[in-house]
């Protein structure tokens, strides 16, 4: 089976880039030894151009910022895309060319893998361009990686997970823009 860890976000705008930074962070910190093929990709700001990548996989964990009324900065959500009530009003979103619309197009075509969405509520977006993440979002990272590891173990109980505790997401976020993934050879 092929498993994709896909981080999405615009790294020029602080917390908005958390998904992309998180993918680089996981790639740097962890090694997953599994009978399945686990691939990590920084999906950056692209929508439609991700379709050919996503359809190559059986399971996808998509990490992105998420809005949810009444939540706090740094709250983490984890759910199956199929469980998402599709009453989304795109008129309410400024960005029609975006992750949800892309997934919806794939669903319309009946060509979509099993997708888990991990969302985190961002604090700072777009006030000034910066690679830096807010304390709240950095604080959420431990929870996010825990969820990710547990989900991978759910898929493959024999998966060995090696990690390097010295890696910090703040340092990674400064170099994501030019960093090569170690684990995206597929």
């Amino acid at each position, binding site marked *: 089976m092929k498993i994709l860890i896909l981080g999405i976000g*615009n790294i*020029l705008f602080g917390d*908005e880039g958390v998904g992309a930074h998180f993918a680089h962070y996981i790639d740097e910190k962890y090694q997953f030894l599994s009978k399945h093929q686990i691939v990590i990709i*920084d*999906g*950056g*700001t*692209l929508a*439609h*151009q*991700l*379709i*050919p*990548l996503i*359809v190559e996989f059986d399971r996808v964990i998509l990490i*992105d*910022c*998420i*809005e*949810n009324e*009444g*939540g706090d900065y740094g*709250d*983490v*959500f984890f*759910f199956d895309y199929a469980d*998402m*009530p*599709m*009453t*989304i*009003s795109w*008129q*309410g*979103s*400024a*960005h*029609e*060319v*975006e*992750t949800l619309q892309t997934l*919806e*197009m*794939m*669903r319309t*075509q009946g060509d979509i893998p099993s997708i888990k969405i991990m*969302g985190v509520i961002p604090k700072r*977006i*777009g*006030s*000034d*361009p*910066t690679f830096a993440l807010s304390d709240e979002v950095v604080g959420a990272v*431990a*929870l996010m990686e825990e*969820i990710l590891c547990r989900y991978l173990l759910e898929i493959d109980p024999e998966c060995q997970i090696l990690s390097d505790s010295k890696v910090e997401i703040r340092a990674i976020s400064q170099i994501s*823009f*030019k960093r*090569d993934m170690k684990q*995206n050879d597929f």
Partner: protein
Amino acid sequence: MANKRIVIDPITRIEGHLRIEVEVDENNVITNAFSSSTLWRGLEVIVKGRDPKDVGLIVQRICGVCTSSHYRAGIEAVEDAIKVNLPLNAKYVRSMIAQALFLHDHIVHFYLLHGLDWVDVISALKADPKKAEQESFKYCKTPYATGEAELKAVQEKVQKMVDGGQLGIFANGYWGNKTYKLSPEQNLIALSHYLRAIEVQRDAAKLMAILGGKQPHPQSFVVGGVTCVRDLLDPSRLAEWKTRFENVKAFVDCAYYPDVLMAGKMYANEPSVVQEVSVPNFMSGDGIALNAQENLFNAGYILNKDLSQAFKIDENLIMEECTHSWYQENKPLHPYDGETEPNYTGFVEKMTIDGEGKNVAIPAINEKGKYSWIKSPRYDSKPFEVGPLACMLVGYAQGNERIKRVVDEFLQASGLPVKALFTTLGRTAGRMLQTKLIVDYGMETFNALIENLKNDESTYTPCPIDEKKEYRGRYIGEVPRGMLSHWIRIKDGKVENYQCVVPSTWNAGPEDSQGKKGPYEANLIGMKIEDITKPLEIIREIHSYDPCIACAVHVMDTKGNKLGEYKIDPKYLG
């Protein structure tokens, strides 16, 4: 009776965030229009003080559509500054990746972003698939995905979405609007192509990845050349390029071209799409190297819709000013000296028409003051339109044989007069014709590359940056949305100043100090709106430019969804 004000915010099915406000008189004719970008983009700020060789990788993150355009512009502005002699192979690779981007971008734009302004999805459900199959032969000898059985399947698929109360991707249309002009059968043909476009764009995206190293953000350009050496020297990778290119070409020839032809015939008498432009000046950049000497598109401009002569661009006459933009400095500045100091003044309360047609007070733009994050670029103090249409018109005026051929053939096939080019319909056709040019001639670059590789495998020229020297350089070129330019100054080996003048800035900018409007605003004035609660005409016009108001935020918006139950409690960590 006082004029009524309509606000559309956000305009969806575009990249980024744009607000349009118009005033209409008692006959619902637009008397004034304002275009406002409501997101601050201080992208130039983040590259200051960095290594110039990193700039390309950073600026490609500006946007979620045209990454490789900005990537290349960031690299080539630096190459221009330090004067690099670029290997031919690198020139061809960059040209091929640009072609792939044009193909991807234009197909996605016409079908997935702009198409539903022309195509009424709900009407397609009433079509007779057999008749639709016959209809498709009127526009193409070998139609694409319009067999009776396939069209039936398309109807069933969409009908199921409608019955389930979930229109999904078709949820927000002004279905039934009187300015939709296609018959149910024609709508069905286009709907089938819409679904196929989702498939075909994959091939175009993969084209970019073959030589770009990866998607979504390619990584094979460096200052001095390209790094995709192994892929260049691998015949199987080049063969894959050719195959995928041909798949995309088949779609362009047998779906995209015929659909625009069909729309051209059916919409020829719809006033809102054949209203002539008010900004009569058009400018385009160089683009798509076909071989060592020739480009497919050449830089230049035309004035007053005059196709009899084209002029050369004098770069010193490009200025940006901020009379109505949320920045400190109002006076016109050349991009080398551009400033990006914000000065946000906000909105004022105004009465506007809501979706039910009622007059309500909401915060609206203050057109007497500053009202947009976009600056107003001017050339020789005149506003210009840029984009695929401008590229076609300038090429036509220059006597570019390739461009003349496709434009003349289209005008002949559709029966449209030359003046129909200077309209919303013409702008949409221009984008298709630009795509057609690339599928017809792009392989020349591929062949030139193969020919060159036989005796030259170089891909990189070392190019050190001297920290004791100051440099300045720029990239100006034609990208899918028009003429893009990046301007850089380098001092002490670091970026001293950086400015991007992007195509949508030329088109979407606010009024200037002389009260002259840019294309978005000027070209809306005079248009009559059929139903002011469903202003499809405005959206169609604005979409025809393929706005790209560089995406800043794309938070997954889950309004109306109860996601609380999926929140993970930190106690989970145990």
